[in-house]
Structures are given as structure tokens and as C-alpha cells.
């Protein structure tokens, strides 16, 4: 029998075997480029959703010339079905600040900002306590790095790093044109490294156990472990740490309710996997790595699921670029019209072509990824869209 691909691990939330401050102390004794190389070798990719190699981002940040540099921890956890960052910030905030501290050391950043989703404001007192300790320790270690907390205002698009920066500058949360990328010109025009909460924890983990150990987790393509926020038709919703690269079939066996019809991987910006593809699809491979995993059983109408997603998108698009602003509205109106019979079933093809245009031309990841869930649902559950 083949080896099971679904492996639960317990590293991210594990008790502190070694004090994070001890790790910080040890790490910043090492040469900076060695640390960056370690992160590069680990294969760690951003845990926010886009999956950009973390080591590369840090390398760009380190080589950026301007001062001061900023480290931003993106805790604007807005992807529907994601609630892992909240868990991290509640249970092990010290590991997050450790990761930010290491990043500050290797890039030469002196200012850190935790961009906290407004709904998590209740965490601010405890986070501030933790920051006070962090700042004392950093001072003792001679690390000139100060972290403040910025409370977001509730727009989904502000999870996109340039929209997040705009919002911190007091402007509308609208993604910027890239280039320049934030590592070149970010917050207030200065080099800014934006990473997800979990990414900082994983980076600190790499520094603790080394790239070789880290790469033993997960697959060749996606190394390490990752937190999954599991919700929907499951009897054990919650946050789980799993090694990357597991078959959907095994996932469903573990978390499904016996009647699973489809699994949405990577949040609404990700793809919807129907039952017939459970065996062939690997979670954490190629797909978005945000970690939102929603399970649907046979009582669910996939039309309603898609309708719900599109309502979300048409409202949460920032509205500046045409393909996303109008495209999302079109997709929603389009499936409504087909359902109502005012547009023929073939109109679905037109809408799928539209998602291709959106993917090719939208300004940021939001508009570009709407087609992921749309196409996977429409292709696999076409009859539900029509009848």
C-alpha cells in the first residue's frame, strides 16, 4: 500500500523548545547572505496565497538601496474560509515577531508594521504586550527594529500587498502598477518587504531547523508544512498543520462527512475540485497555497456556491480596473441570466472566455484569479448552472 500523503505535524503551534529570542540571538550571529541562502534552499514560498519564493523576496529587500526599509507583516486575513493567521497571532505571536526580526536583520530594515485586519483588533492588547518584550530583547541584542500595529479597514483587496501599502499611506486600498515592486519602492516609496503572518513563522522555523530538515517536509514542489483552515461540510472544522502535497481523496477521507461533493482549495480565489478529480489532485501543488479549504457535500447547490463567490468578488473588487470591476458584475449577472433562461446555456462559454480576459488583463491578483473558481465550477457542474 502506498504511503499516505496526508501527514499531520505540529511545529507551528508547538511549545517553544528553544526560546524564540534565543533563536533570534543565534541567527543574527550568522552572515546575512547565509541566512538568505538558507531560506532560498528551503524552498519556502509565501503563505498568503500568491506563493512567491520568500528567500528571493528577502534577497531583493536586502539589495535595495534606499533607507529606511520596512518590514510589513500582512495580517489582513480576508480570504473567505481562512482563519489560520488569527490562530497564530493568538497562540504564538512571538514566533511571528521572531521571523520579522530575522527579516529585519538580513534586509537592514529598521521599521516593522503589523497590518492587522480590523476584525482582529481585540488582539491588540496582547500583541502589544508581546511587542514590548520583543523590543526589549531586540534592544539587548543590538537589533535596531521597531514594530508597530496598523489596523486595517476591512477591504479584501488590501490583502494584496500594494493595496495594503496604499491603505497604510491613508489612501484608497487600490493595487499599484508593478513594477516597481514593494521591495524596490513600497511604503512611502521605501523598500518594503511584505510577508504573510505564517510566512514569517515558517521562515523562523527554517532558521531554527535548517533548510535540509525543512525540505524533508512536504514535496519536491512545495516544501514544508502549512496551516489549513478547514470549514464547510466537515465534522472537524478548524486549523490543522499538514505537510504540503496531499491527495484530495485522503483529505476528504480525513475531513469530509462521507458525502463530499467538492472541495474548494485556496479560498474563493482558488479552484474547486469535484469528486471525480479527488484522486488525481494534490493539495499544495500548483494551486494557491493560502490554506482555505472548504468542503461541500451533496446537499449544496454549486450554483449557489458560485453565486455567493461572485457576489463577494463584485463587492470586494477595488473597482479601479475595468476587467475586474465590470467583469465580476458580468459573471454574476451572466449566471443569473442563464439560470433564469434569459440567456442560453452557451452563454457560459462567453463568460468563460471573459474570465480568460480577466486573467490576462486585470491589474492585480484579485481580478486575475476570479476565473479559477468560476471555470472549475462551471466546467465540472455545468448542469447545475443551467437547470
Amino acid at each position, binding site marked *: 500500500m502506498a504511503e499516505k500523503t496526508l501527514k499531520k505535524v505540529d511545529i507551528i503551534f508547538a511549545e517553544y523548545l528553544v526560546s524564540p529570542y534565543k533563536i533570534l540571538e543565534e541567527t543574527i550571529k550568522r552572515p546575512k547572505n547565509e541566512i538568505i541562502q538558507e531560506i532560498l534552499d528551503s524552498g519556502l514560498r509565501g503563505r498568503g496565497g500568491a506563493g512567491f519564493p520568500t528567500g528571493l523576496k528577502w534577497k531583493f529587500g536586502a539589495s535595495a538601496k534606499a533607507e529606511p526599509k520596512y518590514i510589513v507583516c500582512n495580517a489582513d486575513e480576508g480570504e473567505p474560509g481562512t482563519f489560520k493567521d488569527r490562530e497564530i497571532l493568538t497562540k504564538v505571536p512571538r514566533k511571528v515577531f521572531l521571523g520579522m526580526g530575522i527579516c529585519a536583520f538580513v534586509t537592514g530594515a529598521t521599521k516593522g508594521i503589523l497590518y492587522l485586519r480590523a476584525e482582529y483588533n481585540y488582539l491588540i492588547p496582547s500583541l502589544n504586550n508581546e511587542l514590548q518584550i520583543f523590543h526589549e530583547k531586540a534592544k539587548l541584542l543590538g537589533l535596531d527594529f521597531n514594530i508597530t500595529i496598523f489596523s486595517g479597514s476591512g*477591504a479584501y*483587496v488590501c490583502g494584496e500587498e500594494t493595496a495594503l501599502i496604499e491603505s497604510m499611506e491613508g489612501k*484608497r*486600498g*487600490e493595487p499599484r*502598477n508593478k*513594477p516597481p515592486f514593494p521591495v524596490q519602492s513600497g511604503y512611502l516609496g521605501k523598500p518594503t518587504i511584505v510577508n504573510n503572518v505564517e510566512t514569517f513563522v515558517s521562515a523562523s522555523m527554517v532558521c531554527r531547523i535548517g533548510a535540509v530538515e525543512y525540505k524533508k517536509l512536504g514535496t519536491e514542489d512545495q516544501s514544508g508544512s502549512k496551516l489549513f483552515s478547514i470549514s464547510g461540510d466537515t465534522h472537524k472544522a478548524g486549523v490543522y498543520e499538514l505537510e504540503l502535497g496531499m491527495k484530495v481523496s485522503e483529505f476528504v477521507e480525513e475531513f469530509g462527512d462521507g458525502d463530499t461533493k467538492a472541495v474548494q482549495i485556496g479560498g474563493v480565489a482558488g479552484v474547486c475540485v469535484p469528486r471525480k478529480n479527488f484522486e488525481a489532485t494534490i493539495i499544495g501543488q500548483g494551486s494557491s497555497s493560502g490554506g482555505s479549504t472548504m468542503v461541500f457535500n451533496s446537499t449544496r447547490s454549486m450554483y449557489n456556491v458560485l453565486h455567493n463567490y461572485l457576489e463577494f*468578488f*463584485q*463587492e*470586494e*473588487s*477595488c*473597482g*479601479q*480596473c*475595468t*476587467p475586474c*470591476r*465590470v*467583469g*465580476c*458584475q*458580468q459573471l454574476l*449577472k*451572466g449566471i443569473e*441570466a442563464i439560470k433564469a433562461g434569459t*440567456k442560453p446555456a452557451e452563454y457560459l462559454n*462567453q463568460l468563460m*472566455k*471573459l474570465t480568460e*480576459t480577466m*486573467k*490576462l*488583463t*486585470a*491589474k492585480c491578483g484579485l481580478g*486575475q484569479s476570479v476565473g479559477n473558481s468560476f471555470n472549475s465550477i462551471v466546467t465540472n457542474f455545468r448542469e447545475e448552472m443551467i437547470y
Partner: protein
Amino acid sequence: MENLINLTIDGIDVQVERGKSILEAAKIANVRIPTLCHHDDLCVAGNCRVCVVEVIGRPRLEASCAVPAEDGMKVLTSTPKVRTARKDIVSLLVAEHNTQCTTCYRSTNCELQSLSAEYNIDNDDYISVLKPQKPIDKSSWSVEKDDSKCVRCQRCVRTCAELQHVNALTASGKGNHMKISTFLELPMNDVVCTNCGQCITHCPTGALTERRYYSDIWEAIGDPTKHVIINTAPSVRVGLGEMLGFPIGTRVTGKMVTALKKMGFDSVLDTDFTADLTIIEEGSEFLQRLEDALVHKKQVALPMLTSCSPGWVKFIEHMYPNHLDHLSTCKSPQQMFGALAKTYYAEKMGIKPENIVSVAGMPCAAKKFEANRPEMKSSGYQDVDCGLTTRELGHMIKQSGLDFTNLQESHFDSLMGESTGAAVIFGATGGVMEAALRTVYELITGRPVPFENLNIVPVRGLEGIKEASVKLENCLPKYSFLEGVEARFAVAHGLKNARIIMDQIAKGESPYHFIEVMACPGGCIGGGGQPIPTNNAIRRKRIEAIYAEDEGLAKRKSHDNEELKKLYQDFLKEPLGHKSHKLLHTKYRKRNRY
């Protein structure tokens, strides 16, 4: 050359400076890429995505306006992928648009309409997502805002912020609720809008237009009991041609006068007449201020600021309400004309002022607001009944059925039709200053201003803030207190630059004595009522035309205007006299910042 990079666009080799966009590189290669949110005056937005192109090796299409050209880049601008995407994007914009083009003021001069025609947009592709119609905001005297025609390119927002530093317009809401709005969604007449109309000339569609009054004028012309007169500003004669098929920068003064006469205006007069008058009054006021400061040691607000641009006046009322005493008390030429039309003109012509309909043909949107300011009734009637833009005049001429191209040229009527070159150049940034200097210097010294051929070149051109200075020597006895003074002048255009000037004044650091400010970039030739489009290339051509008109005139100093001399002799008696104060000078009010 390290700073130059090489790329190909549709196979054409192009060399550009590093940092230039793909769009700019394409222009050099003579490859046309359609755009919508892009405007030469404004920062890059990359919003509309109409300008997408394929870059070999990149997974997605790139917005050519926003993406820098790179060394070795291979760009394709007309592949099936690009064409499909562009057509989709234009279709989406059309699906969001109020497509009643037949009733739209911007029809045939609309960028969305052109794109839609270019890509053969089929209305069946997508379902209309036009929002339920909100009434058109007609609260402002000058600017109408129709959200149903908005393509959300944010050109107006960028114009209001970048060119004008006013920020009356802003994007609000997100996703399907995203729209262009105002502070607290207040109507346009309740916000800091200066009525400059730059948002109108930068709007690609009919979402922002001037409030139009020309139907009222047709009605008045048709009413035999009314004596309808029109005065036209200097910039109209160099802009109007663009509405009627002439190349940019064509002077159509004589044809315009003929057309207006044929259309039925009882008298076609020249705003330049009161521009000359403004110079006399404002120059005298300036000298009075200098005398008060230097001789009588009074507290006088210096530098003095010009007040001919109503957008600028409203700007300072909102933004620098504590510095209104720096503004010249002179009314603008339009308002001086109006006040005299229903007094001096009425008297001389033997027409009852209540039967006169006084119309102003202006390159301006703010002039409509200005005409309706409550204090502008010094004749006992509303001094100016109606301000029309150059665009409205163009439409009226078209409606009149005249063959404009083949019209004979004719001269302005009299009374109040004579003018000098000094008045003509009011239309270009720096013109008021130049005209004032031609007169003031001569008043002080008895000699012509010491610039070759009266051309005060330092105050000309499109640089944001321009400076000049003149040393006053061998002054006439009356002005001996100015002997040896180095008089310093500045010219600012575009309210962004006005703000720099005003910040200096607010800090008490302004090194100048007299400053000309025009609300619109380029001055009136780039006004909010001028033909669309406007950009720096067009502004330059209109400015050239203005100076050519000046050079061609025999009289080029305001104080040489014969009709003006007669006006003082018969009616006003003296500059800054009792009648002048009643009719030609005004007061300002403090307004709030929001």
C-alpha cells in the same frame, strides 16, 4: 549609452530612454496603441486596461501605459490575444455605460464612442450593468456631473488633484459601487470645486460637461424686444476653429465675428476692450498700493494678485481665506464688460438696460459661476446674463447652418469693440502680466517697457511659475518714490502652481510685488471651456496663435485704446474713481475648506 535601451515593437526596432513606458516607445515606433485612462497631462493610472499588449515571455498581457520598456523586450500590439482582450474590455465599459449616444453632448467627441466603433462593440456580448440612474448633478452653475456616463478612468480625479490641487472629485466606494464622487457625496456646488472645468476637458466621455445655456440665448435672439450683445474673450478666437474643422491654433477672429452677427446677435463686441480697461484699473491699483506702502507707510497687502480668473478667485477664497486682501479688487474683463454694458453702453446706445441680454463667449467654465455671483449686479441688473463656452459657441455656429469656412471676415462692432494686442495676450499664461507691464512701466517712466519689440519673453511659455523683474530708473516726478526699485513679478498657471505662490505669501516669504495667476494650465487658451482635447502640444499652438494676433495689431498697449480713452472721458472720468469703484471693482468672501 547606458541610459538608452533597445526593444522591438511589432518587429520594429526602437531605442528609448530607460524608464519610458511601452506606450511611449510605441509612439516613437509609430505604432498606435489605443488608450482611455491615459492622458498626457496626468500621472499613469493603468486603470482601464484598454492599452494592453503582449510581451513575449510574460504570462499575462501588460498595460502598456504603466509598464516600463525593458532592454531586449519584444512587444506585440496586435495579436489575436490582444485584440480579443481589448474588445472584451471595451465591451465591458460599454456594458457599464449609459449608451444613449444620440442625446449625449459629447457624441462624436467621445473616446469611449470611438473605441466602441473601432472594435465594433456588439451590445449583445454582455448584459448592461448600468447603475439605476441617479439624477444628473446640475447643482453647479458651471459643471454638470452625470455618473451614468462615467467610465471610472479617474482622469478627473487626477486632474483635480495633480493639476489643480483642489481634490473636489474623488473615487468612492469599491467594486460595483465604485464611482467618482465628492466630499460626503455633496452636490458639486457645495464642495471646494473652483469650477475651473479642467475635469471636463480631461473627461473622455460625457460624464462631466459644462452646464449649457445656449438654448436661452437662441430664445433671446429670437425675441424682438431683446437687444442681445455678445463679447468674446481672446482665447475663443484661437480655439473656436478646432470645433469647426480648422487645424489647431488657427485664428478665426474675423469669421467668428461674422458668424455671430449672422446668427442674430445685435452687437458683437470684444472682451478685449475691458481687458484693456482691466489693465488701466489694475495697473493703477498696483501703483496705488506701492504708493500707500512706500510713501504713506500704510499696511498694504503685497504682492498684489490678479483677479481675472474666476476659478483662481474661488480657489483662494476656499484655500487661503485669510489672504484675500492680496487679490486685486478689479473685476475680471467679463464682469467689467457686463457692468458697462448695462450702464455706459445702454446710455450711449439709448437702449433700456432691462432689454439688454449680455452674453459672454468664454474659454472658461468658471465664468458661468462668476456671472451668477450675487455681488455681480452693480449695474442694477445681473451684469452678465450668461456665459457660454467656446464649445457652446461652436455648437451654436453649427446649428445656425452657416458655412463657417467660407465666411467673410468682419470687425467687432462699436461701442466697446476696440482692443489692443495687450488685451489679446490675456489669453495666454503671462499675458496679463505682460500687458500690465507694457502700461505700468510707461506710466512710471514715460518710456516703453525695456524689452525688444514690447515682447516680455520671460513671462511667456508653459513653465509652471515664471519670473521677471524690471529696475525702475529715471521715473517721472509723480513716481519718484519708485526710483531705483527693482520690481519683481511672477506668473503662475494651474492651481497647483498657485498653491506654491500662496504658500510663499502665507509664510511671508514671497519675493514678488505683483503676481498673475490663472487657474488653468496654459492660461485661458487651456481653459475648461475650450475644445476637447487639450494637452501641452495643443496649448503651445494656441499660445503661438495668441502672440501672432498680438504682433499683427497696430496698437499693443492698453492705454493706447481710443475707445477706452473716450470711456474715461465721457463716463468713468478717472481710474479708481467713484464710478470705477461702483462698477469695476468687487469684494471677495471667505469660504471653507470642504
